[in-house]
């Protein structure tokens, strides 16, 4: 691609306009910097001294105290544990429900398919405040007690659509002939899935799981409707805003961020490696967009 670019430029015609040569990189740099500022604020304020154990907006001096007393606030720790539990359980359920549905939607025509497509699209475009509000109205109507159970139900209702979309997109970009070949060779659809389709879509299943995990652990809006007395990490933090944020919030945020960066970087490296492998193995079938 870079070769194309240079060819285009040395070709004489279509010289870059001055703004793409100079102004654009500067603009990109400024915007990138702007997107990093809140991340820096989070990391830096995790090292701020806080005599009353609540952060002030002004800088008080450097300390690593909050890293040593990371789990001192029992409520905050248990809210974080709840968040992780909800994210793991709801993502597992969403994947179990979503993968078979995506297989059917990507490969078969069947009765009710259009309605299902429509439901998924509406689900993905519905404002989360409406999803949360309608679920609360529904839980009240059927008098289902609100708590961790209803939070999980609500999170699955959102992430199952996300899982289906991701897996379906992956299946659509994949050649169906591989599965057909397996079945022609006498494999049952079940075996064909476990031996052929499953391994091929496993990266997509992993990203679907990670995305639904991230959506769940991050969610404030929907959870704030259906939580009852249960507090997740975002709800606890929002509640603490009025009295002042303990520094541990930013420290935990920083640690979650670091873990996220490591996982994302590892995935990137692994994916580009397996992509290269796939490309080498199936040289004629190029354009593997992931």
């Amino acid at each position, binding site marked *: 691609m870079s070769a194309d670019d240079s060819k285009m430029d040395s070709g004489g015609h279509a010289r870059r306009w001055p703004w793409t040569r100079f102004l654009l*990189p500067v603009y990109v740099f400024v915007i990138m910097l702007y997107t990093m500022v809140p991340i820096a604020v989070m990391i830096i304020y995790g090292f701020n001294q806080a005599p009353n154990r609540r952060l002030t907006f002004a800088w008080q001096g450097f300390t690593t105290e909050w890293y040593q007393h990371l789990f001192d606030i029992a409520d905050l720790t248990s809210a974080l544990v709840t968040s992780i539990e909800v994210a793991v359980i709801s993502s597992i359920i969403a994947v179990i429900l979503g993968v078979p549905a995506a297989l059917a939607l990507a490969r078969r025509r069947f009765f009710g398919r259009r309605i299902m497509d429509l439901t998924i699209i509406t689900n993905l475009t519905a404002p989360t405040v409406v999803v949360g509000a309608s679920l609360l109205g529904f839980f009240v109507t059927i008098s289902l007690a609100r708590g961790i159970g209803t939070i999980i139900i609500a999170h699955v209702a959102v992430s199952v659509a996300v899982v289906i979309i991701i897996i379906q997109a992956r299946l659509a970009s994949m050649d169906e002939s591989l599965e057909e070949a397996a079945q022609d060779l006498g494999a049952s659809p079940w075996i064909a899935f476990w031996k052929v389709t499953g391994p091929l879509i496993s990266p997509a299943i992993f990203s679907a799981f990670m995305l639904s995990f991230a959506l769940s652990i991050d969610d404030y809006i929907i959870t704030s409707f259906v939580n009852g007395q249960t507090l997740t990490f975002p709800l606890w933090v929002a509640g603490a805003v009025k009295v002042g944020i303990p520094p541990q919030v930013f420290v935990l945020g920083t640690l979650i961020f670091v873990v996220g960066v490591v996982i994302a970087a590892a995935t990137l490296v692994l994916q580009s490696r397996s992509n290269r492998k796939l490309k080498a193995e199936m040289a004629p079938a190029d354009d593997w967009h992931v």
Partner: protein
Amino acid sequence: MGRNFKKKVTPLLLTAPANFWLWAFFTIPLISILWLSLTTGNTLDGFTLTWNFGIYPDAVSQYSEQFGRSFLYGGISTALALIFMYPVAYWIAFRGGKYKAIFLFLLLLPFLVSFIIRILTWQFILADNGIVLSALKDIGLVSQNAHVLSTPFAVIAGLTYDNLPWMALPVYVALDGIKRDQIEAASDLYASGYQRFRTVILPLSAPGIYAGILLVGISSVGDFLSAQILGGPSTTMIGNIIQTQYVQNQNYPLASALSLVLMVALLAFVVLYGRFFGSKTLKEFAG
């Protein structure tokens, strides 16, 4: 017959669990708030259906200000997100070279910070004695009692920042998918840089812009955390009203009516926008 029957039933079985979940915990609740909005009563005595359609005009006129504000703030922050992210996505897609993946990774870093903390940090940045204002006050650029928190600016800043990655991703995917030979063809036909952008790159990236505007627009119009944390009494959005009426006041009929109005207004916007902008611009730009 056995094989045929199996072929028909298998997809139904495969989709049944997901369908059940989507209907039971998305579609039916959505329909049920229509019912809930037409009831009267309270949490102690229960709610009975009274076909109280009057709640809709009442709700809209009572909260027209908050509705208007939500669409205004949402619109501004969506436009800002596009202005900020399009050039960056463009640069990464066409000038990123072999470091493309790394630049994209850096651009999407805010995704890895918890949603609530992303908004919270803006409170620290914009506070009266926070990083920005205290520095500006020290050098005398703004007056000592200047403040930003609780103003529309603060809420829009939070909304915009929060949704940036959702704009960056679809726009980048669209730009990156443009085939180099199409751009080269334009150059071969002696298109200037601007013409190349206007007639080839912009129309081909229109689907990404469209998706980004939808994602960011819907999520920022319905958001209430930014207004809750960075705003004040004069910046209340419709999401805040729905949340308070539902969770604190337990006025389920009113809150249900407000949610349905919001949902329908956004759906109307999606459909109109799809008709008017989605297909039209694509054709116009291409033709």
